[in-house]
């Protein structure tokens, strides 16, 4: 099996099969970060796709010193943050249809409530804090990996996580104390 750097060397020479292997290897990672951050499947797919296309277009400038994975995370992270900063609220003329499917079991309903509460809490965070929380608590990155992916210092990561947690705790208090 070829390493990431060997595959990127092939991509530099225009090898689409090598690019396909890289995408298959890391599509879940890119997708997970984008989905956790944006909360919308189609937007997450657009951002994840754009990240791979940018990597493909910039393959000539890729340097293998820090590895492909941190590089991919950096690209995805920046695209996610840019996406949120550029996004304007969309106004629907039609209200969404009421879900009148059969009622769920109590446990399932509680789980759905929890997921909605977490999603709402995360959406309230400003972009940098949101990304730090996603990478640290959803993806399990170490603090230094978060700093590398976001292109900020470890101290800035500490501050972002501290402030993010302070905002999340009161909203999620009910589930944290269970």
């Amino acid at each position, binding site marked *: 099996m070829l390493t990431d750097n060997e595959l990127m060397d092939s991509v530099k020479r*225009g090898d*689409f099969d090598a*690019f*396909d292997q890289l*995408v*298959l290897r890391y*599509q*879940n990672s890119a*997708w*997970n970060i984008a*989905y*956790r951050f944006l909360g919308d*499947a189609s937007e997450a*797919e657009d951002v*994840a*796709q754009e990240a*791979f*296309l*940018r990597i*493909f*277009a*910039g393959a000539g*400038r890729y340097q293998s010193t820090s590895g492909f994975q941190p590089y991919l995370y950096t690209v995805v992270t920046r695209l996610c943050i840019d996406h949120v900063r550029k996004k304007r609220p969309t106004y629907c003329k039609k209200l969404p249809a009421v879900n009148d499917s059969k009622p769920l079991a109590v446990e399932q309903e509680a789980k759905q409530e*929890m*997921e909605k509460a*977490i999603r709402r809490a995360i959406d309230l965070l400003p972009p940098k804090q949101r990304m730090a929380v996603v990478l*640290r*608590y*959803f993806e*399990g990155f*170490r*603090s*230094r990996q978060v700093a590398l992916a976001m292109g900020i210092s*470890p101290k800035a*990561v*500490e*501050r972002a*996580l*501290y402030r993010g*947690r302070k905002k*999340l*705790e009161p909203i*999620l208090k009910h*589930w*944290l104390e269970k």
Partner: protein
Amino acid sequence: MRCKSIRTKLDMYCSGDTEPDLHTKIENHLRTCENCSQTLRHQKAIEALFRQLPAPPVTADFAKRVVAAARRQASLYPQATEKTQYLVRLASGLSVSMRVAAVVLLAAGMTIGFVMGRDTWWRTTTETVGNAQITQDSSAAYGLDCLTEGANGSLVRTYLTLTFEQNGG
């Protein structure tokens, strides 16, 4: 160490990214401070809560679509730089009316810039010529050029001739 300082470092402490000395200081503090210990418990609870939520899987044909898009991009603009390809993708995402509006704005901006630039050039050129004329003709510099245009035999001419002779010219 103060509590606020400890709490900002709890993430690094949990992920094992602190130096050994700092790790020991934080541990010692947590043994004696209930508030910071509770903050640590909440942090671990947040982490555990978030980990319970799986993300839906990526679509089955995601890789196929990405590679197809890369092929399209490469075939349309084989020599394009990354920036050009990005701009092309951006432009192709705009509606026809937005593209027309962008072109109109660009043309208007260029026209205004050209007109203003031409006026500035004209003004600058005129002043430069005027200044050059003044410096070549010293009598014009002092506003006395009207005197040198007097007819032969006029009082002005006589005066200038006399003053010129008196000064040994």
